[in-house]
């Protein structure tokens, strides 16, 4: 009986506590809502939005109050480079792919001026995912060539949002590069960091295959089949490599605003050599920590942050990895500063590992035993092409152009043409360390290729007899002699 009474009392207590907690919560929520209801936020003054081309972003909003922000954006249709020797007629917001970065805070009143250049062939409009309202502004901003449309909206929800053109045929307008990011910062702004950059992925569909030179037309068939020829960051192959690489110093915290314009592909965004300390999942308020790869849907975005602790090149990729090494979705963040061996010791030793028997050794023995007849030149070229496609193409590319700053070119390659024995050695035994090819330094590793002497001869003959090289024919005998 006593027990029952006790338990009854405790139940009452629990209820009381629960009610108290609930009361606290609801009143808290109310207080927050009253403070932050963006609709009721007063705007102070008026200013023109700072707009930046990728990979730069405008200054943070910081502690500024909500304001009336005038955004001026121009639609321009123009031919630009997609890859070395490949051009494409892009449709752009402000002349870049992605379009200018727009930075606002919650409660801002945006007066958006969309201008369509008189030279444009087509009408365009803009659908901003940050807009609460029909079409994200698409209908209100529909504008003929040589005209300007003005519409207004209030930023209601903080987050990182995609904007894009939504004129018929919508898919084609997006496929031609009409997308970008708009950031709505929360009240008080995002926490300050050392470096901020703007990166956006997109997939492109061309009449010619990847690497086919000249002005390439849009392929509607491939777009419908979602069979992309190029998957790139910031509008082109090499948009974030070489001179376009991002930079940071050891010890700095880097924030990337990453968007995906699509039109079709979802990005498995990853930075080789880093772990994201923070990810604003899908560009919203939820923060995940210690993330290796974050998914960015087409028409979506994410904010990723990480502190760079050691020097070196971090590689931004879509970890759907063939897109990175074969279609262009590869960027570099160059980190400079002092080595930190506590975090990364680097390679400290390399020695022979010999377990006694090895699969490849056995294979080599049988190869040595058999005397295979030398192939004809035509057979070598055909066989060589197959071997190249299977073993070499991923890094050195179908055109032998390589990838700037990562994989050296085989086309018109001075390094290759200078010494055939060295070339055989590289294929048979691999190569590490810095080399110079056509005036550029490369420092990466090529693994030993486990292929027969016959195949080494074929693939090298193929390489030497293509892309402006010196037409050396490599024989099995030459390969055998390199030991």
């Amino acid at each position, binding site marked *: 009986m006593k027990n029952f009474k006790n338990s009854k009392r405790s139940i009452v207590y629990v209820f009381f506590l629960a009610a108290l907690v609930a009361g606290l919560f609801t009143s808290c929520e109310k207080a927050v809502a009253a403070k932050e209801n963006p609709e009721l936020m007063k705007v102070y003054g008026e200013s023109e939005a700072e707009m930046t081309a990728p990979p730069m972003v405008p200054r943070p909003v910081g502690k500024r109050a909500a304001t009336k922000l005038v955004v001026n954006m121009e639609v321009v249709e123009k031919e630009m480079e997609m890859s070395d020797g490949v051009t494409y007629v892009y449709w752009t917001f402000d002349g870049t792919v992605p379009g200018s970065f727009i930075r606002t805070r919650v409660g801002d009143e945006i007066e958006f001026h969309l201008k369509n250049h008189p030279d444009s062939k087509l009408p365009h409009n803009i659908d901003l995912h940050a807009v609460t309202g029909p079409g994200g502004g698409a209908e209100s901003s*529909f504008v003929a060539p040589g005209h300007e449309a003005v519409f207004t909206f209030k930023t209601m929800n903080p987050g990182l949002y995609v904007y894009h053109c939504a*004129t018929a045929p919508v898919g084609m307008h997006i496929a031609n590069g009409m997308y970008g990011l708009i950031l709505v910062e929360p009240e008080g702004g995002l926490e300050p960091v050392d470096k901020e950059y703007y990166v956006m992925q997109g997939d492109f569909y061309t009449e010619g295959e990847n690497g086919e030179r000249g002005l390439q037309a849009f392929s*509607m068939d491939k777009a419908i089949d979602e069979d992309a020829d190029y998957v790139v960051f910031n509008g082109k192959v090499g948009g974030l490599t070489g001179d376009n690489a991002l930079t940071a110093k050891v010890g700095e915290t880097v924030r990337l605003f990453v968007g995906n314009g699509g039109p079709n592909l979802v990005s498995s965004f990853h930075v080789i050599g880093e772990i994201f300390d923070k990810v604003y999942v899908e560009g919203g308020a939820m923060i995940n920590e210690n993330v290796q790869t974050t998914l960015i849907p087409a028409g979506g975005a994410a904010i990723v942050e990480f502190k760079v602790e050691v020097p070196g090149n971090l590689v931004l990729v879509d970890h759907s990895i063939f897109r990175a090494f074969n279609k262009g979705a590869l960027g570099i963040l160059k980190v400079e500063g002092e080595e930190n061996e506590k975090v990364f010791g680097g390679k400290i030793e390399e020695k022979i590992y010999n377990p006694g028997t090895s699969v490849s050794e056995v294979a080599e023995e049988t190869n040595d035993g058999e005397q295979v007849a030398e192939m004809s030149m035509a057979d070598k070229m055909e066989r060589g092409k197959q071997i190249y496609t299977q073993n070499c193409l991923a890094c050195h590319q179908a055109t032998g152009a390589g990838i700037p700053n990562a994989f050296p070119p085989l086309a018109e390659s001075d390094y290759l043409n200078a010494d055939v024995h060295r070339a055989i050695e590289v294929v048979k035994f691999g190569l590490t360390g810095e080399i110079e090819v056509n005036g550029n330094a490369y420092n990466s590793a090529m693994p030993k290729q486990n292929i027969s002497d016959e195949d080494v001869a074929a693939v090298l003959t193929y390489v030497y007899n293509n892309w402006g090289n010196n037409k050396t024919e490599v024989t099995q005998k030459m390969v055998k002699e390199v030991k």
Partner: protein
Amino acid sequence: MKTLTRLAFCIAIMITSQAHSQSGSMVEVKGGEFIPLYGTKTEVPVKDFRMDVYPVTNAEFLKFVEENPRWRKSQVKKLFADDNYLRNWKNDLSFGDDMMPNSPVTNVSWFAAKNYCECQGKRLPTVDEWEYVAMANETSPDAREEKSYNQFILSWYETPNTYKNTIGNTFRNYWGVSDLHGLVWEWTSDFNSVMIGGESRQDSTGDNNLFCGGAAVGATDLMNYAAFMRYAFRGSMKAKYSIKNLGFRCVQDIEKSEL
């Protein structure tokens, strides 16, 4: 009264320019029925008519403004043409040195184009008439299913500044009409009757049987993406707009003499 005088004026002009309009040759298009982009099932009838072989040129339009001062750049009423009207012209009676006399006239409003045709005893084509003739390639009256036909049009839509080219340099189609694709957009009399709204993705929802734009799943003519772009372009127009890539040509009814 004002309209009367205008009419009289037009008729006067018509008589004087008759010879000229004849030289700006026309061809006869045999009517028929076709399913345009926006129709779900119903076929649209098109009567026999004559169509200009080429779009109206700078030289022809210059003659028109010489004879019709109210369509001169400095005198045109703002209601009938926006600030871009004949924007590239040097002055009222000269189109400037970098423009060819036999390039299509552009930066003209719908009102100006309509009046031009009326003064020639002609009229602007309807969207249906225009689309009917424009679905032909060199050899077939309806080439919409052919890949090369669509490819040609799409690639033109992606080529900047074709308005600077001269007439007669694209293909002459089945009906003998030139430059419907590959040179400039062209005004139609009812350009705003089939709307691809600014929010094209919604056009396919609701009860209306227009299904233009993004949600093209219902279109009878899925491959004809180029046509979507034309309808979208027309949807963005207002009658007083004058656009750099937009010209026009005229058509004429065939009077059946019933004796």
